[in-house]
């Protein structure tokens, strides 16, 4: 052990004092925000004017403003937990081995796990793990300039694979009576394409929205679940509320006086099982989602059964689903039911993750298989000198072929 813990110890004590100081500042800012939330709870048109102004500013200044806009639900309202209903929930999750220039060869692997849980059926949940995909061709691994593809590219392919599984499975579980299914994914609803080239972003988004459309057309309630979010969308909206319309400019938007807070600080007032009002997400690059009625809307949900300890998640759903309040109620009730099965996190997401995850031992097994295959074809598998030394110094085994 080379970490000088004795040197860290006084810093840890200083950190404790600092955290205490932050709490006081946080409480003060939170009181201001909560007062604004009450004051503007139903001032939809006033707030929408401000959101439009912020959008204008970002358009003119090439400045990214990300925030929330109200829908038709009072912002300060806590919507109680609806009664439970028996519905099928399908969840998928994925994991990957990223391309590594220090490994024995360049490749990446994507694995997706999914589970179908039929509430009230008394049936064993069905697990489904599509064939893992091993990518090794130069076109898979290198961009047009010959550089290794960015991590974001693999993540996008994994996200597409996760959604593809939901789109494949959901129609099989829609009941003949039209009773829907919930298609649940971990993380945000829209595809994160920021690391990709513009052209690639467009291609991937098109494919992704097409899958979202397939899910919508099959009648599946596509939902994204973000545990312990650090988003500040509603904080940004309240910052707009605190400004005069004319004072909304690049400078004021760039300096958020409430930056010590996140949205979940505001919504700590939600009781067990309660959800917040519905908001729509405002950000650049969402136009293609809006055109397909797939624009992201969200609410915060307290899944905890404990009145003294809230556990908040952000739930994202597409615009078309917001237009069906009964379906939103079903979703609300089912997500709380799922989360309470597994300790404040949806049981199906925990299981889908368990099915998808590639353990270090499994990764080692894959690389052993690759090494054997390379040997069979007369290719010497060897790690980079850097990786070999790291393995030696951290006590990990290397290939002894």
């Amino acid at each position, binding site marked *: 052990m080379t970490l000088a813990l004795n040197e860290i110890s006084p810093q840890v004590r200083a950190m404790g004092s600092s955290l205490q100081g932050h709490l006081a500042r946080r409480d003060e800012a939170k009181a201001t925000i909560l007062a604004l939330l009450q004051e503007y709870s139903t001032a939809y048109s006033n707030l929408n004017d401000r959101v439009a102004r912020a959008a204008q500013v970002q358009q003119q200044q090439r400045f990214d403003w990300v925030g929330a806009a109200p829908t038709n639900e009072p912002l300060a309202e806590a919507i109680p937990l609806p009664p439970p209903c028996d519905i099928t929930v399908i969840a998928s999750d994925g994991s990957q081995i990223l391309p590594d220039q220090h490994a024995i060869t360049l490749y990446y692997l994507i694995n997706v796990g999914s*589970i179908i*849980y*039929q*509430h009230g*059926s*008394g*049936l*064993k*949940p069905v*697990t489904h793990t599509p064939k893992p995909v091993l990518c090794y061709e130069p076109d898979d691994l290198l961009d047009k300039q010959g550089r290794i593809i960015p991590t974001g590219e693999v993540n996008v392919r994994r996200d597409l694979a996760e959604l593809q599984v939901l789109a494949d499975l959901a129609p099989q579980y829609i009941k003949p009576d039209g009773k829907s299914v919930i298609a649940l994914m971990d993380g945000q609803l829209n595809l994160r394409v920021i690391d990709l080239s513009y052209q690639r972003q467009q291609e991937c988004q098109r494919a992704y929205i097409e899958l979202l459309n397939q899910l919508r057309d099959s009648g599946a309630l596509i939902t994204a679940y973000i545990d312990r979010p650090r988003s500040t969308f509603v904080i940004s909206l309240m910052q707009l509320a605190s400004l005069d319309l004319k004072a909304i400019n690049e400078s004021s938007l760039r300096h958020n006086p409430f930056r010590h807070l996140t949205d979940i600080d505001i919504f700590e007032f939600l009781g067990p099982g309660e959800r917040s009002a519905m908001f729509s997400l405002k950000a650049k690059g969402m136009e293609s989602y809006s055109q397909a009625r797939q624009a992201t809307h969200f609410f915060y949900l307290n899944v905890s059964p404990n009145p003294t300890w809230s556990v908040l998640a952000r739930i994202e759903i597409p615009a078309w689903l917001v237009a069906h309040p009964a379906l939103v109620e079903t979703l609300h009730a089912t997500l709380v039911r799922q989360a*309470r*099965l*597994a*300790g404040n996190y949806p*049981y199906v997401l*925990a*299981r889908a993750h*368990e099915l998808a995850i590639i353990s270090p031992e499994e990764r080692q097994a894959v690389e052993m298989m690759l090494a054997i295959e390379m040997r069979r074809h007369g290719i010497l598998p060897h790690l980079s000198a850097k990786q070999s030394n790291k393995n030696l110094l951290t006590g990990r085994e290397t290939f002894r072929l």
Partner: protein
Amino acid sequence: MSTEFIVGWVLRASTVGFAVGCRVIQPNTPHFGDLVKVHLEPEAIDLFGIIYNVEVHDDPAVRQLILTGEIEPEVILDQRQNRLVPIELSVLVVGYQQQGQLVQGLPPQPPLSLNAIMICDDVEIRRFTESFDYLRLMLNAPQVPVDELIIANLQRAALAQSENQRYGFLVGAGKALARLLHTDLVRLEGILKRIKN
């Protein structure tokens, strides 16, 4: 009655015993005291053993479910049938068969990891228990609940006999035990009483 089916696979082994991993405890999976066998290739040896422990290992996910207190039937089915519940059987080796000859003693070599374990059917149980020499191996086994294991094993073996031979089988087993435990009459009495019941 044919009950030959794979109940698990060898996790680790020695000449005197081995541990078996299996997915889940089913109603027809082996019980404490049951006779099981492993076939070794290419030596063409069948090893025989008796299950002396069934252990369900700790699983943090199950602990978490218990703490929530809201366990739906679907969750129980998922945990028991879909997840790899870490169940481990411990087996005491009591004999082997090579070239048709059955020996009640330790085999020349242990099984290897991932050898399949099968439960013995009634024919195999009757054949194996034609002699009671294996009881000596059981009585000498360390860290095994020997008396309870002998009782469970003999009761199971008696059920494999036809009804009119069951009593004679137990009397034979009792005599063998009396020879082996003649210096410990209290213990002998305890075992015999339980076998009779």
